[in-house]
């Protein structure tokens, strides 16, 4: 099992090097992933189906967040349990700005920036911690942030922030605003996938993976680990921050308990794990599969009382028997697939 995981991440791979030499944009795997996500994302736009759009929105959000988390978790090997803190903080700042009359694009950028800034400030401190201690520190930060925002007047304290319906007017009314949010999230998701791919196939990404395999050795080999880790953390935080603004803009309100839900962080870990950590395609597949499964269990009359039990049992089976995730397993099983399954 351990071997499987290691062989799937061993580097540098001949095929990987070829792709690197050709430039990442020539990699067919990336284009295929983008094409599939893009086509599925375009489906509700073409058919103009709002219900499908809502379901795919949830999935795209998960893909964007899981792909971002993967930069830290999969490539660098740091388990963040509190990644939702970036989603929540970005969302909060965005909502605050939106209510002060700032436009959506600026709010989204601001959300991404504050999340990146927080990661930068935190990164230099908590990334010194290894293994479970880092995981715990991220939980502590998420809880500290949640309770702080509950006391923070400008963000509404425990009441949170509600958008006035009039905020949707400049975008052509609420119905149009929802479509706009959807387009934005779809673009953001595609950007997240490209970013994930770029990082993995860059020298920087090589350094990150060296850190994951053996941090001390990486340091000896000349990777400036604190800097590399901090930038990985920042890169993994920006997109959740931006996605947070889009999500809560669509939702219309934000409260501390919804914004900093620890459970959501853990769900993201599960998604990355399902698909295969350290691969580009893994988090995409994991997020889609997880949301699909949850959606099915939740709405199925036979399972709805036991959906949590079933989801838990399934997670356990995967952790115990396919720890490398679906894509990791495929890559280990069919080594030549590595060229096309990024």
């Amino acid at each position: 099992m351990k071997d499987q995981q290691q062989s799937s991440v061993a580097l540098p791979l001949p095929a990987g090097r070829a792709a690197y030499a050709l430039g990442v944009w020539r990699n067919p795997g990336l284009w295929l992933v983008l094409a599939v996500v893009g086509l599925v994302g375009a489906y509700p736009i073409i058919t103009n189906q709002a219900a499908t759009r809502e379901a795919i929105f949830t999935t795209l959000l998960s893909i964007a967040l899981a792909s971002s988390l993967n930069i830290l978790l999969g490539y660098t090997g740091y388990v963040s349990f509190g990644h939702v803190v970036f989603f929540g903080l970005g969302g909060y700042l965005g909502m605050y700005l939106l209510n002060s009359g700032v436009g959506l694009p600026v709010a989204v950028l601001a959300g991404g920036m504050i999340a990146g800034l927080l990661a930068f400030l935190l990164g230099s401190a908590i990334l010194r911690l290894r293994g479970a201690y880092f995981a715990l520190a991220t939980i502590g930060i998420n809880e500290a942030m949640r309770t702080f925002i509950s006391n923070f007047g400008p963000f509404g304290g425990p009441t949170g922030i509600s958008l006035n319906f009039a905020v949707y007017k400049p975008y052509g009314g609420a119905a149009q605003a929802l479509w706009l949010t959807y387009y934005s999230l779809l673009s953001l998701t595609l950007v997240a996938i490209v970013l994930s791919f770029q990082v993995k196939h860059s020298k920087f990404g090589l350094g990150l993976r060296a850190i994951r395999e053996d941090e001390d050795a990486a340091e000896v080999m000349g990777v400036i680990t604190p800097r590399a880790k901090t930038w990985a953390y920042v890169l993994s935080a920006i997109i959740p921050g931006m996605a947070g603004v889009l999500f809560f803009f669509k939702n219309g309100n934000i409260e501390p308990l919804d914004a900093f839900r620890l459970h959501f962080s853990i769900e993201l870990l599960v998604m990355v794990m399902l698909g295969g950590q350290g691969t580009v395609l893994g988090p995409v597949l994991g997020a889609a599969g997880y949301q699909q499964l949850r959606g099915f269990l939740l709405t199925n009359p036979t399972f709805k009382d036991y959906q949590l039990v079933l989801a838990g049992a399934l997670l356990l089976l995967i952790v115990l028997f396919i720890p490398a995730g679906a894509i990791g397993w495929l890559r280990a099983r069919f080594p030549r697939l590595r060229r096309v399954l990024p």
Partner: protein
Amino acid sequence: MKHHGSLMTAILIALALVLAGCGSAPQAPTSGGAESSATTAPAAATTAPTGATKTVIIGYTASNTGKLNVESNRQSNGLNLWIKQINEAGGITLSDGTVITFDTRSYDDESNKDRVQELYSRLINEDNADFLISPYSSGLADASAVIAEQYGRIMITTGAASDDTYTKGYTLVYQAYTPASRYLTGAIDALKQQDPNVKKIAIVHENDKFSSDVSKALRAYAEAQGYEIVLDEGYDSNTTDFGPIINKVLQAAPEALLGGGHFQDGTTLAKQIAEKQLPLKFLALLVAPPEPSFADLGDAALGVVGPSQWETQAAFSEDAAKALGVEWFGPTGAEFVSAYQAAYGGEEPSYHAAGGYIAGLILQRAIEQAGSLDTEAVKAALDQMDVMTFFGRIKFSTAAESHGLQEGHEMVYIQWQAGADGKPEKQVVWPNEAQTAELLYPVR
């Protein structure tokens, strides 16, 4: 390379299917308590000719799992009882002669907001819900109301007291509950009438949206009435040890304490206040006291006052309606209680259950008045509605800045008092016209 190419294509197709499945997988929604034949009624019968029948779909989400599941399930029970009754009575005949019956579609929202909007979109677009009922709790209802408004569906919110859902410029969302801003103000009135000498009040509330909103309005009202707020403290939602807070109250030495939050923290707070023998003349807490299981606290429950949207004893009657010059509509309180108990194994209905039922009753009244299912016509009927029901008076604000806010309904205040056998019994103590017992005062 070639066969790997095809394997890869197969995998990507599988991925595409998984992704696409998110949107289009056939998922059977939960069918409600109505007769099963209704579930297969074609949705295409919208433009039915005279004499035809049609099944109207009511869509909602319920919290089958998560922290809200008890209250939410009672609300669903209430709604399903209304559906059963209206269908057994033959449905409603519209002005064009079409007879309509009702059925429900519902999903589990897991007590959290993530999927509420997705599920409501699905209810509207895939299950063809004609009217919507909100989920339980202000936060979830707020998230769902956006969707209702966006797709132009009428939504009756119930189990949701927050005021600010109605200050956002919505036009199709109508509130059945008394809003948060008037949740505890009646307790101040009751206290003032009972003992004009009380001056010092402490407010201790859960640090969440609903309880903070209630406390803010309470504070403003109490100060306007000349009370001194000696302590105003929030506590975290999952607090189990109130020792430090009770010590603060002890130190501030108020004569009355108002506040609380939801069921669990409220019962814990009441219990620990009793254990610490806090010398209070008056104690009013949100949400927890009206719950029947609050009596499990035993002696600690005695004297605790709580606001309730509705109580089985509350005596709203046709006569009271006449005195107000308002029309009476629907069953009496006693009829509702006995029907509910018959349907749900003798369980006494809580106000959540009554809230679910009343949401249906409001729709029924509006559709009957409109004589059609047309959104504009039903909306006009809702705007004009002013009726007395067993739940109390129902009238909505039509002002642009607060459209849909409940204006007619008033809270009743209950107090746990020792019954003949010494066990705690619930009595309505305020307002005077609904009173079943005098206020027990001072508490200790």
